[in-house]
């Protein structure tokens, strides 16, 4: 039972760490995008598209982490 508990602990911690990383990354993207939009309002739509793509890619990595955590929790 201790091993299972440790697996759950690891899964929870891992999920949290993945979320921290993704949050920092997406936060950075959003900050830069806001700054870029403020500097060049005419490029808003381009910046938004780029931002969404980058955020989606980072989110994808975070989701990989989450999936691994779920798998860990299942073991």
């Amino acid at each position, binding site marked *: 039972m201790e091993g299972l508990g440790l697996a759950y602990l690891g899964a929870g911690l891992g999920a949290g760490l993945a979320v921290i990383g993704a949050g920092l990354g997406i936060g950075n993207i959003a900050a830069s995008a806001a700054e870029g939009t403020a500097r060049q309002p005419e490029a808003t739509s381009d910046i938004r598209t780029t931002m969404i793509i980058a955020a989606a890619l980072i989110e994808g990595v975070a989701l990989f982490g989450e*999936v691994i955590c779920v798998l860990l*929790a*299942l073991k």
Partner: protein
Amino acid sequence: MLTSGVILLQANLLSPNPGLIFWTAVTFVIVLLILKKIAWGPIISALEEREKGIQSSIDRAHQAKDESEAILRKNRELLSKADAEADKIIREGKEYAEKLRSDITGKAQEESKKMIAAALSSIEQEKHRALDVLRNEVADLAVMGAEKIIKNALDADMQRKIVDSMLQDLSTKRN
């Protein structure tokens, strides 16, 4: 979520289910093919057609604008030309009128001068004629007076006095 972990294990949140993949693929392909035929074809062709229509309308509008600008420019030129023409015509008309006026007045003055001269000459002639008539009348009167005198008394002095007074009268009358 501890319990949910167990449930995940039982119900296989992440485990592949080939049946569902099969059904998804079949459903999606059928939907894709049908929609391609009934919806995307007409919609996209309509959109493209409209896009082209709008583009050509814009092109046409630009062309029309250019054309109208050219016409406007031409019209302006024509107008300014017409203005100059009109100015010229008016100026010429004025000059002609001025000339005509001076001509007419000159002629009229001449005419009037001529008429005055003719009138003066005719007055002179009339005067001469009247004088002639008067002279004849005076001569007749003198003859008549002489006759009376001769008839009344042939006194020489008296005769002279009469003749003299008559002549005196005549001369005063004449003047």
